[in-house]
């Protein structure tokens, strides 16, 4: 496989193809689509955290003038629990069918119980109020400690752990060596317990869809998601309509961050459209988004790390309990699998526990689980380094994983770039700069590292040369991180033409081959592989066409700067044939020029990052602010550096929110008390400094352009970096997120001993 060098477009900050539409408001998001005869769907949601549904009477709602259809769980295809898992990606359809519409029990406030379609939104809302649900209200639990109590109400009675009905619905472990033996060798052992709160992905665009079901069953879905094929498959599973009859058209997406890798509305709207014979539109309110979608897990983690006096980690043990919400499936794989991975630790046990409780089912959130685990591990590492009187970056370097290190979750690392990220952080202007005077506020600096698996998987692409000699590339992944711009750069590079001649679009499910969803930082890695192979096929065709015209051997033709040339003077003297000329001649020379490739891509390398964070704390008000931040990451190859930096900066911004203010707050009744952006405090621009990025480029040898996924790693180290910086400022450790002003002040005002337990 050739690594492209001497690039003209790869590595350039080209103008993003979706930019103009987005800044002028022309971009079509999910809620922007309308159809003649369209009606509106609304969802009736459970007010209770936990309740048995004894009966649902929809007769009054159905009689309300303007109501065209009502659906309940009876209309959704059931996947019986006892028949075993039916997996679609990471989702089990047994839980999906119960999440989109409660069956026997409502498991969180906001859990859908019925849905109505009516001629106006107001009528649909009114009709929801006329649906009579007879609930038997049950005891509930939300917090992990409550859900694990011996007498805790069990959400899924069929589930047993240690032989007893339990809310622990899953466990995994990664093991290496013998930790008992390892800890015996340690001179310093530090064990700490940490908690984090549920946080939402916070995409600005609420879930929305418009769905039409024709009388012959042909179904069209316009919706915003991280995978139109995922939407098609899940909707097919849950409605019984074959996939061949469902055309899922991806809208422009207003943020996803993992949270749009599952469906909520599409199956309901499809059934309402089928029943009513009318196109049905559904748009969630922000409150519905906050109550019933995402967020990621709240967590409780205990991490023990032992090291020798000379700074070598000899053993580590992590136990990560993560909230799954109503159904199994919290991201314990990310927490247990990623947290220790930057380090070469001979004796390691990393355990994850999946805990159900009465809150909404978790959805993926940027490196799912990994930031939660890294928060605990990287904070303990900071304490160990301090106990050893070592610089925290030197301590990491001393224990860094490198080529040949066997990770506890399985792989033996190929050439990886972790050490380079630590070295770059250490050499950064930021790490060398003095903290400066806080004018009464206390300043501190912290560092942390992080790892994410990254992914490959199925992708398809079709590359076509237009009749005028330009290029249209169709891929199958919603673009949430710059994949269109990256693909345009790569395709232009390979063809040797201006990137503006390459138009990259995202196909719908019936016009491009299967492509797995946008997630796992896989899209540019995977889609550039299929686009590269498609483009190479086209270049081969173009060479053959030129050879035919020149009546020479195709091997004697080279493709360069957008034109066919004789490979050498020996091949003959011919004027170059440009892409435009060959396109014009195409009808006479064998027909249209285009190629498609479909692959299950392999060879995604994991990603590593190391972050440096400065904070300033107003000790009288308890307000911590991040005043300087540098994110270093091994990005493989930055195809579009502007977008890569955007990914790094975006991840850091989300992590700062998670660290300082974001959290789900619940009322005494178990309902989310802050279901909106006013009281769910994501950072605003003025809360953040400019976030500096250092891109370390260690190309992935298994990828034609050296690409590694970059989208998820930058969230992983952030909370630990902020927490370690706050410790450095205040001399007090925090073991719970968020470090919001009331909580910071509480620790500052507590007697000294208490803070460190």
């Amino acid at each position, binding site marked *: 496989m050739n690594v492209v060098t001497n690039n003209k477009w790869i590595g350039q900050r080209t103008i993003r193809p979706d930019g103009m539409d987005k800044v002028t408001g022309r971009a079509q998001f999910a809620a922007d689509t309308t159809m003649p005869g369209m009606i509106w769907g609304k969802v009736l949601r459970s007010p209770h955290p936990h309740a048995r549904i004894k009966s649902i009477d929809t007769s009054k709602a159905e009689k309300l003038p303007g109501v065209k259809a009502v659906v309940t769980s009876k209309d959704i295809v059931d996947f019986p629990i006892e028949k075993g898992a039916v997996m679609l990606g990471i989702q089990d359809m047994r839980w999906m069918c119960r999440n989109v519409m409660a069956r026997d029990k409502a498991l969180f406030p906001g859990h859908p119980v019925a849905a109505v379609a009516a001629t*106006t939104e*107001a*009528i649909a809302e*009114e009709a929801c109020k006329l649906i009579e649900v007879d609930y038997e209200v049950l005891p509930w639990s939300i917090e992990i400690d409550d859900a694990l109590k011996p007498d805790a109400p069990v959400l899924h009675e069929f589930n047993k752990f240690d032989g007893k009905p339990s809310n622990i619905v899953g466990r995994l472990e990664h093991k290496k060596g013998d930790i008992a033996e390892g800890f015996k060798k340690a001179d310093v052992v530090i064990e700490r317990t940490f908690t984090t709160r549920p946080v939402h992905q916070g995409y600005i665009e609420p879930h929305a869809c418009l769905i039409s079901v024709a009388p012959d069953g042909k179904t069209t879905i316009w919706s915003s998601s991280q995978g139109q094929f995922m939407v098609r498959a899940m909707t097919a599973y849950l409605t019984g309509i074959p996939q061949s009859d469902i055309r899922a058209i991806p809208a422009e997406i207003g943020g996803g961050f993992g949270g749009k890798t599952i469906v909520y509305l599409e199956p309901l709207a499809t059934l309402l459209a089928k029943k009513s014979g009318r196109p049905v539109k559904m748009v969630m309110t922000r*409150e519905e988004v906050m109550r019933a979608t995402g967020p990621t897990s709240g967590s409780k983690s205990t991490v023990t790390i032992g090291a020798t006096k000379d700074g070598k980690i000899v053993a580590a043990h992590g136990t990560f309990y993560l909230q799954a919400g109503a159904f199994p499936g919290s991201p314990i794989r990310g927490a247990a699998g990623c947290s220790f991975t930057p380090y070469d630790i001979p004796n390691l046990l990393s355990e994850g526990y999946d805990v159900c409780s009465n809150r909404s089912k978790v959805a993926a959130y940027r490196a799912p689980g990994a930031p939660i685990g890294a928060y605990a591990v990287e904070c303990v590492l900071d304490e160990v380094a301090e106990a050893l009187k070592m610089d925290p970056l030197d301590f990491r370097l001393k224990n860094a994983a490198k080529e040949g290190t066997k990770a506890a979750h399985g792989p033996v690392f190929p050439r990886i770039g972790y050490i380079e990220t630590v070295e770059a952080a250490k050499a950064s202007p930021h790490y060398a700069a003095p903290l400066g005077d806080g004018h009464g506020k206390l300043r501190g600096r912290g560092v942390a590292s992080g790892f994410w698996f990254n992914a490959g998987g199925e992708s398809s692409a079709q590359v076509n040369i237009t009749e005028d000699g330009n290029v249209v590339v169709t891929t199958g992944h919603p673009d949430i991180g710059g994949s269109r711009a990256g693909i345009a750069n790569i395709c232009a590079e390979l063809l040797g033409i201006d990137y503006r001649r390459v138009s990259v679009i995202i196909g719908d499910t019936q016009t491009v081959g299967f492509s797995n969803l946008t997630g796992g930082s896989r899209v540019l890695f995977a889609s550039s592989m299929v686009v590269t192979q498609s483009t190479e096929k086209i270049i081969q065709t173009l060479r053959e066409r030129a050879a035919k015209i020149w009546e020479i051997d195709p091997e004697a033709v080279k493709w360069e700067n957008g034109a066919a040339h004789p490979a050498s003077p020996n091949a003959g003297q011919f004027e170059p044939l440009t892409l435009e000329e060959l396109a014009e001649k195409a009808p006479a020379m064998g027909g249209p020029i285009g190629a498609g490739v479909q692959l299950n891509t392999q060879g995604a390398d994991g990603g590593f990052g190391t972050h440096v964070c400065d904070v300033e704390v107003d000790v*009288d*008000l*308890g*307000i911590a*602010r991040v005043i300087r931040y540098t994110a270093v990451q091994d990005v493989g190859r930055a195809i579009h550096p502007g977008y890569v930096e955007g990914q790094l900066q975006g991840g850091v911004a989300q992590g700062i929110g998670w660290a*300082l*203010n974001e959290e789900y*707050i619940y009322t005494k009744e178990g309902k989310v*008390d*802050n279901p909106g952006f*006013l*009281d769910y*405090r994501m*950072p*605003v621009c*003025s*809360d953040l400094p400019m976030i500096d990025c250092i891109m370390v480029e260690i190309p992935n040898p298994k990828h034609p352009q050296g690409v590694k996924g970059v989208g998820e790693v930058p969230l992983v180290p952030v909370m630990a970096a902020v927490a370690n910086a706050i410790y450095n400022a205040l001399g007090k450790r925090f073991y719970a997120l968020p470090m*919001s*002003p*009331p909580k910071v*002040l*509480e620790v500052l*005002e507590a007697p000294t001993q208490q803070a460190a337990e």
Partner: protein
Amino acid sequence: MTELRYLAPDTLDEAVGAFAKAGSAARILAGGTDLLVQMRSGVLKPGVIVDIKKIPEVTAIEQTADGGFRVGAAVSGMALAEHETFGKVWPGVLEAVNLIGSKQVQGRASAGGNLCNGSPAGDSVPAMVAAGAIVTVQGPDGRREMKVEDVPAGPGRTNLKPGEILVSFTLPPRPPGSSDAYLRMIPRTEMDIAVVGCGVSLTMKDGIVTAARIGLGAVAPTVLLVEDAANALIGSKLDDAALAKAAAACSAACRPIDDKRGTIAYRVKVAGVLLKRTAAIAAQRATQKN
């Protein structure tokens, strides 16, 4: 489905007539930055909306004969910021009004709406209380005046009578050596609701405080006028002891709740911290002018 009627009268008499006639189904629309949000979220479903922005008196900023100001209830934050002299005389009131919402919201949001929304956390209210503003209201029985601190009755409620509309705020003339300031604590840097808000208005002569008023927001069901804190400052040089005493008085005046925005302990402590910081800014402004 109920219909919504929208009226935009040119005179106060018409507005009061329509408002009174519609009874509890009616709502006054100034900037609408609270009303429209409440309607969209389904909290409110008014039958009649009376838009008062076409009434000249309600959107005017005037300097009164005695040197004070009369600010119409529906004057937007941006309009107040652009006034030539208002912000020089009442920088604390202006900064408080300008903290309502975002820049975009400032084009609409008004001090009148902020007050009538009845939120204990409204930013402009503690500053208006500190300023000693008097409000003019007009209702079916004619006009009357109230102290601004007497308007809020509790969260979401006011002491205006049925049919009464807030017309304007009157701010008194300023003796030399006077200024004011407003600070709030929010977890973020903007786009947030005050966890504690503090307005301080001072008059100083030869480094000694001769008059002071202090308003505290978000620490009780209504915005508070904290006279004990003001008394602790009056006669002092804003020395540490006086500031500590005033801060303690602010903390003592708090009757907050634990909620999603802050704890009781946090609010009580922060009220005192903000008093010291706000007083320092007001004093610096007051002495700069001399």
